[in-house]
């Protein structure tokens, strides 16, 4: 049947029509081969716009449709649906991107119009050769993998599990909880972080639908939405988690003393330890690098083992549960899931990079996270804010924007620092009513429910706000009152005075930055990243939790810095998306995939090695290659490489692309 093409030029209000002369383009389209009708309309994506197409298909018997409007990444699904509604196969539709790639990027109206014509002509030439394709449906695996056991991952996991579906919760660290578990209070409501998070952590541990894979990492992913296969490494913890009761006696027996990560190194732990008071799973773990026995074992000696044997002198018995297993090895497990939620969070910016702030060089300069532990009742000082010498600070300066809003480090604003700095100030006023607290800020950014009110409250509480970014922290005293203290150099930009501010304690409100393993994870999951290093969402406005890889979602701070409410909201949003797919039970798989013409195939097997998905197998009898339609993702690499031209890349056939090139130059 000869092609009968309908072409529709969208004004997109003035977005396109402002630069591109749509009537000229329409006129031009009418003159193109096989074009039965060409119209322009204000908003093609609107209902009346779509109805134009539907009616023409029915009335004029169109068998091909071209819409020239925004990017196909925006509205291709919309128009494909419109075609299908009118009984036209969705693969007989083609789009010309005359907004993102024309009217929005060009100023010369004439040339923009010429380009728009070319793009339309390309689409018309191409669509004429397009063939109807049937999308296949495959079953959706109802299991979900959640990567990251912070508040985001916990929220997502619980919502899916509570809906009755299996969730694998993957956590790099020995316990879930993430950064939130380290916090003391949360802004602006000041409810205690542990009080609201630990119940969730426990229910993760108790929920039968959740399989917690703590101290484990994702190493490989294959498959596609609905049918992923993930390879996961369970790192050796040298503890039989089934036997371990989490009594903690082993730690009492261990002779070592090491900096405790959970307390940012401000407190101590043993080489065998339970990560935190409310660890989930509440099981011990051995730090192999520092365990005397494991170190000895490496060079063939049998040392220590006090945790196992006990200490007779002190009359202490060792692990009665016999949970300690020095021979444990890393183990690989493979799981099958239908969807993946990435909730890997952030890492705190290392302020030691900013030499002049003295972190790591001068005593009593703390990071925000360190202060969280310092002020936390379960922290190294049981919640007392103390200087390194054990005394209480009389003056504290909180320095905003450390590592963020700074071209030398991160250009972006970390969004939460202003608020947690206010929270710190409140805690300080509460714990040390006599102490003077200074906030050194550039701009107070308190956008959120109850946030500005919290700011006002802190002003009432008598916190000193200095509008200026600290330039330097030094211990070089220039006056008696500065002696043996820290001096913060800052301009009070509101009174235009340079000040030397003598203080006892400096808290650096550090930026949130992408975790160092973001790049590696992006590769495993084939996700893109933004210029700032965080994961890239499918659409910043309309699809903020989805990604360009179907079936993979990003939530929380791995997408961009955000506070707990926003993080939890995203987690729930992603959970809802996953549940929707699970309840649908099926997933359409891409029809635009490779297909081998057995007649033409010479059996050279070149394609087999090229295929990144091992989707091509070789039929030994017929001596031809064959494509597994479920595995093929339609990248077309094999098509381009086949010496005998036997492989056809459906919807991207050589003929179609050639025609498009011809059209774009016509």
């Amino acid at each position, binding site marked *: 049947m000869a092609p009968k093409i309908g072409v529709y030029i969208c004004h997109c209000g003035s977005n396109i029509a402002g630069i591109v002369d749509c009537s000229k383009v329409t006129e031009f389209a009418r003159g193109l081969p096989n074009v039965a009708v060409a119209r322009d309309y204000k908003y093609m994506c609107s209902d009346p716009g779509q109805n134009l197409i539907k009616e023409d298909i029915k009335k004029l018997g169109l068998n091909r449709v071209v819409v020239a409007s925004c990017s196909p990444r925006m509205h291709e699904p919309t128009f494909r649906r419109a075609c299908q509604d009118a009984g036209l196969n969705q693969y007989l539709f083609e789009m010309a991107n005359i907004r993102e790639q024309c009217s929005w990027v060009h100023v010369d109206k004439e040339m923009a119009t010429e380009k728009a014509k070319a793009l339309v002509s390309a689409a018309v030439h191409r669509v004429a050769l397009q063939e109807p394709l049937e999308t296949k449906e495959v079953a959706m695996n109802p299991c979900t993998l959640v990567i990251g056991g912070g508040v985001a991952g916990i929220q997502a996991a619980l919502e899916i599990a509570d809906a009755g579906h299996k969730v694998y919760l993957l956590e790099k660290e020995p316990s879930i909880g993430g950064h939130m578990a380290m916090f003391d209070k949360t802004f602006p409501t000041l409810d205690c972080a542990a009080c609201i998070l630990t119940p969730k952590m426990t229910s993760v541990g108790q929920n039968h639908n959740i399989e917690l894979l703590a101290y484990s990492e994702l190493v490989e992913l294959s498959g596609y939405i609905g049918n992923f296969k993930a390879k996961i490494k369970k790192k050796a913890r040298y503890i039989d988690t089934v036997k371990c009761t989490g009594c903690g006696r082993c730690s009492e027996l261990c002779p070592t003393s090491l900096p405790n990560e959970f307390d940012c190194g401000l407190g101590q732990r043993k080489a065998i330890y339970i990560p935190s008071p409310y660890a989930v799973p509440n099981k011990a773990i051995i730090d192999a690098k520092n365990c005397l026995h494991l170190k000895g074992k490496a060079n063939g000696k049998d040392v220590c083992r006090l945790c196992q044997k006990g200490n007779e002198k002190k009359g202490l018995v060792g692990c009665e549960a016999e949970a300690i297993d020095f021979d444990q090895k890393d183990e690989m497990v493979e799981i099958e899931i239908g969807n993946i939620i990435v909730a890997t969070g952030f890492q705190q910016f290392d302020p030691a990079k900013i*030499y*002049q702030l003295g972190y790591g060089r001068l005593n009593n300069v703390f990071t925000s996270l360190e202060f969280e532990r310092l002020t936390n009742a379960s922290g190294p000082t049981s919640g007392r804010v103390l200087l390194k010498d054990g005394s209480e600070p009389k003056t504290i300066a909180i320095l905003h924007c450390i590592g963020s809003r700074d071209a030398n480090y991160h250009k972006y604003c970390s969004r939460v620092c202003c608020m947690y700095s206010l929270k710190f100030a409140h805690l300080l006023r509460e714990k040390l009513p006599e102490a003077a607290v200074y906030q050194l800020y550039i701009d107070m950014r308190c956008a959120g429910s109850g946030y500005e009110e919290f700011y006002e409250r802190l002003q009432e509480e008598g916190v000193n706000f200095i509008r200026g970014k600290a330039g330097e922290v*030094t211990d*070089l005293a220039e006056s008696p009152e500065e002696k043996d203290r820290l001096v913060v150099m800052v301009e009070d930009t509101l009174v235009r005075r340079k000040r030397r501010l003598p203080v006892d304690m400096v808290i650096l409100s550090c930026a949130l930055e992408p975790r160092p393993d973001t790049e590696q994870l992006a590769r495993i999951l084939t996700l893109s990243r933004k210029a700032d290093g965080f994961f890239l969402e499918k659409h910043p406005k309309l699809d903020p939790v989805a990604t360009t890889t179907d079936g993979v979602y990003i939530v929380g701070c791995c997408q961009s810095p955000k506070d707990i409410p926003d993080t939890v909201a995203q987690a729930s949003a992603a959970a809802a998306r996953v549940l929707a797919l699970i309840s649908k039970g099926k997933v359409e798989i891409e029809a635009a995939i490779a297909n081998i013409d057995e007649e033409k195939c010479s059996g050279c097997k070149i394609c087999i090695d090229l295929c990144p998905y091992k989707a091509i197998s070789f039929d030994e009898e017929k001596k031809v290659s064959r494509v597994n339609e479920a595995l093929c993702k339609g990248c077309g690499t094999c098509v381009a490489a086949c010496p005998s031209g036997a492989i056809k890349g459906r919807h991207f056939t050589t003929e179609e692309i050639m025609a498009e090139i011809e059209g774009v130059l016509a």
Partner: protein
Amino acid sequence: MKQYSYFPGCGLSPEGFGRAFDWSIKGVNKVLDLEFKEIPDWNCCGTVPYDTLHEHASFAVCARNLALAEQIGGDLVAPCSSCYVFLSRTNQYIHEYAKVKKEVEDALAAGGLAYHGKVKVRKVLDVYVNDVGYDVIAAKVKKSLEGLKVACYYGCQEVRPIFGRDHPENPKYMDKLVKALGAEAVNFPLKSACCGGSLIISEEDASLELIKKLLDSAVSNGAEVMITGCPLCQLNVDAYQAMVNRKYKTDYHLPILFFTQLMGVAFGLDEKDLGLKTSIVPVKKALAKFI
């Protein structure tokens, strides 16, 4: 023998106040087997005053030197920090601003010259530690400066605004050099602070205050000598030390040397060739053990 073109600048010229730097560089180069070929009939880089009052010509006068250096070939070594900053800045602006490039080209043409932007500007210390290397330098040491406590004063323009070579506020490469010579680099927090530069003349009080801070910090950290790679830093801290003592009732006698002079001593060169006597605060006592 590795070759470089050489821009002594006014400070290191035969009549300049930093001529001892020039002498000691030449001495050290012999030991390290380097050759610095002086740009024929070079002109002053113009530095801050020219940049501020004649910003057009300031690029052109620097470019003249670069053009002449290009004819010699190789990297251009500019010992004086200010010369270094302005010569390399000219390179940068020619690269970044078409209009600057155009003007500079026209101006040079008027003088029958052309510059193709091929010259890389370097500092002496940079050449020594990165092209020659600490180990080679250490190997050339005849009299280890063991026990000598040295404050390494980089000054501002040794490390700023040009990045890459070392940390712009906490550089270490002169400290490492001192270690290579067997001496000890004392902790010196103000190692990259400013000495007042040419404003010692017009803003004496401001500059003297800065110089005093430098002396306070260096001496309180036990320094017996201070070394620097900038003629202006050396001049200010050395020549104005007496004035600081008068103004602040202090009693400092801290010898201020060019790092090349200290290298020369460690290499066992003749003190005359190093111009140790040109220092105003006597250096003999501090270095007695080694010369």
